[in-house]
């Protein structure tokens, strides 16, 4: 099974869990209380999020708390950046071609008018 940030955010419940914990660190039970699904299901999602490195669980006294790892979420942004760069390069090259086409087009039109 793939375990990375994209796997983490692929599921809507996991995205909601991320949103919850991003605002406030919570115990797994407190997270489960915010959802209509079983504690077992939430605990499974929390396990996946932990394996993906999005959250860490720390013991505080008797309770265990889920903490967000925001720098991990930045990977999503970085990932899109590479794809954007590829297309930016293509379109920048196209910009040059288009302006070349436009300058070539003008004299051609003038010739047509003379005829």
């Amino acid at each position, binding site marked *: *099974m*793939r375990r990375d940030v*994209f*796997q983490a*955010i*692929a*599921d*809507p419940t996991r*995205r909601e869990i991320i949103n919850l914990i991003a605002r406030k660190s919570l115990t797994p039970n407190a997270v489960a209380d915010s959802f209509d699904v079983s504690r077992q299901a939430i605990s499974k999602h929390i396990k996946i999020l932990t394996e993906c490195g999005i959250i860490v669980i720390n013991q505080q006294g008797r309770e265990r708390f889920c903490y967000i790892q925001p720098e991990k979420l930045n990977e*999503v942004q970085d*990932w*899109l950046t*590479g*794809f*954007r*760069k*590829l*297309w*930016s*390069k*293509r*379109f*920048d*090259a*196209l*910009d040059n*071609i*288009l*302006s070349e*086409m*436009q300058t070539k*087009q003008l004299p051609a039109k003038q010739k047509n008018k003379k005829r």
Partner: protein
Amino acid sequence: MTTKNRTKITAEPGRQELFITREFEAPRELVFKAFSDPAILVRFLGPDNLEMKIDHYNFKSGGSYRYTHTDKNGNEYAFRGCIHEVSAPEMAIQTFEFEGMPQKGHVSLDTSLFEALPNNRTRLTIHSVFRSVADRDGIVMSGMEDGLSQGFAKLDAILEKGI
């Protein structure tokens, strides 16, 4: 030209689609021509480090295309698709598939919309819909700057693991 238009990529997590948006300082007919003429397309679509060759490019409704990117080691990456619809100069709908995938059928459906803007400008929106979230994520990953081949190797690895 002093202002540079920005390329916008929209790919929401967990969805099977992505949007590529870009504006151009040229009239719509011209931008459309750049995408319909293989001699022009080959000049901007190929990534820097790869040589692009077009096998055929029959840009009309019911047509098809195939092109290859070759790296400096001679490795060839082929792409092909069918042209579903061409409505010059505002729309083109086509399929897109990387032939190097372990299994066939990882196809996306790409709709390119060319919008005429005031002052002879054009907005291009490419909307790609993939068969799965994993397919989409794989394509985005293949666009990493460190070279397409490396990206595809990663994509192969991901698909082999069976997401």
